[in-house]
């Protein structure tokens, strides 16, 4: 019969299908692999150090003779740098999002937005040295007691790095607020500021929050800047002027050092990695849910 398919064609299609499947699941398998290794190595770690100790001990000295395995000082360092970064990025990012979405002309937006997004494309090692060699000396002129390595300058620079994340995603969220809502607001005699902040901003709120959460998650996971400019002293302090250490910076420190493979000290980095993974996973899930909620709102 004329319509009968040649067997070779069927085989070819099957082959192509399998190939496509393989490629698309490559990243899924990789993720799974990472999670399994993280789980396995942290499991080994927590056989020797109790989770309770890990979460409550206030000292982190796995590389000293007197060993303590309390994650709190590292968490605190991560929290502090992230907090400073958000304090910088939130106002700047949101104000520029409002400006780009509600005030700027199409032409200006077409120029400014890509330039802002370039900020996100700068290698973070450059930011790290920018913090260490430019921002810290600058801040020292204002705060003479500032240490050479500190949470403040790395936090500020990290904030600059995540501005485009907040401004760009928030702007997208605000722009997708339907024009009809703006018209409704103008029609009852709003001025532009009122439309922006009382109608568009609340209307885009879930998208904006989702962008902020993503930015936080990015700041928590950021490594190079803090490894270079924040110091390597795990300290349970909220003082931004002294050297501290974040979870990520600790992982770098151990990975680059001569800690023997398979030891407890070596496994600390997996416990740290697991902690980071859990935090960012929760944040990303939260942000993803918000974003979906937001997409549904106007459909």
């Amino acid at each position, binding site marked *: 019969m004329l319509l009968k398919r040649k067997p070779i064609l069927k085989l070819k299609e099957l082959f192509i299908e399998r190939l496509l499947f393989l490629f698309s699941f490559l990243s899924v398998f990789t993720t799974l692999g990472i999670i399994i290794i993280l789980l396995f190595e942290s499991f080994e770690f927590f056989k020797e150090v109790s989770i309770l100790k890990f979460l409550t001990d206030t000292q982190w000295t796995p590389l000293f003779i007197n060993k303590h395995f309390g994650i709190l000082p590292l968490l605190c360092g991560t929290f502090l740098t992230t907090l400073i970064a958000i304090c910088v990025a939130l106002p700047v990012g949101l104000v520029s999002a409002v400006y780009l979405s509600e005030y700027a002309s199409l032409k200006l937006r077409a120029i400014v937005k890509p330039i802002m997004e370039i900020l996100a494309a700068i290698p973070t090692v450059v930011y790290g040295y920018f913090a260490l060699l430019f921002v810290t000396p600058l801040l020292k002129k204002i705060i003479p007691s500032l240490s050479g390595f500190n949470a403040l300058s790395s936090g500020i620079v990290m904030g600059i790095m995540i501005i485009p994340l907040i401004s760009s995603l928030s702007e997208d969220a605000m722009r997708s607020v339907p024009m009809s809502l703006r*018209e409704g607001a103008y*029609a009852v*005699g709003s001025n532009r500021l009122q439309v922006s902040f009382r109608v568009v901003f*609340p*209307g885009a709120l879930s998208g904006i929050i989702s962008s902020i959460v993503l930015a936080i998650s990015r700041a928590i996971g950021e490594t190079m800047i803090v490894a270079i400019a924040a110091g390597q002293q795990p300290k349970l302090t909220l003082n931004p002027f002294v050297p501290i250490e974040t979870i990520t910076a600790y992982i770098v420190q151990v990975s680059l050092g001569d800690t023997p493979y398979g030891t407890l000290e070596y496994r600390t980095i997996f416990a740290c990695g697991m902690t980071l993974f859990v935090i960012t996973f929760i944040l990303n899930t939260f942000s993803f849910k918000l974003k979906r909620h937001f997409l549904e709102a106007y459909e």
Partner: protein
Amino acid sequence: MVENIQKPIFKIQNLSAFYGAKEVLRKININILSNSVTAIIGPSGCGKSTFVRSLNRINDLILNFRVQGKIFYHNKNIYDKDVDVVELRRKVGMVFQKPNPFPKSIYENIAYGLKIHNFIKKEMIDEIVEKSLKKAALWDEVKDNLKQNALSLSGGQQQRLCIARALAIEPEVILLDEPCSAIDPISTAKIEELIYELKKNYTIIIVTHNMQQAARVSDYTAFFLSGELIEFGKTEEVFKAPKDRRTEDYITGRFG
């Protein structure tokens, strides 16, 4: 033209409007009388929406939109440089084709227009919210759920909420841009009834695709075609004895 018993609230002279290079209104001359209902009819794309959207300058929001000619509102050209557009829009309210309540509570939707402009006491706002909802014939349906999100209302209720929102700031004129095109017949009937009520205190300009609706609710009718005003007069006369052949063709359903 129409005998001027009521005084004209809008005097429109040689109004042309453009989106970029495209001319959508050509030299419109028309007077809108106060405390009357004027219907604007015509086929899609004839410029009737653009016309009403020029009257409160809401079309300023559209890129590359511009007008020529003059629109006098109480003898002041609203396109003069020194016009306070915010004040104009508070006097000339608008209800859009698709209901567009804010994603806030029913109460907040109406209170919004009051809060942005003046410092008003909470009790005053409560009172105006109730009054506006009553005027828009929505009060009985929502009085127990004022905190409910406006988006949970039906389309017809949302549109009446938008009318209440427009009424809350006490405008003189209400522009209705095909207010019933996106809602069901029962809600449409309610809104038509409402227009009849509102006529006593407001000047109403309604764009409609629905000839029966124009005939039912309006005192005056303007027929637009391809950006031009073809005929304007008392609704009765326009529908019963149109002067222009094209008007007759349109209202008898020969095109459009």
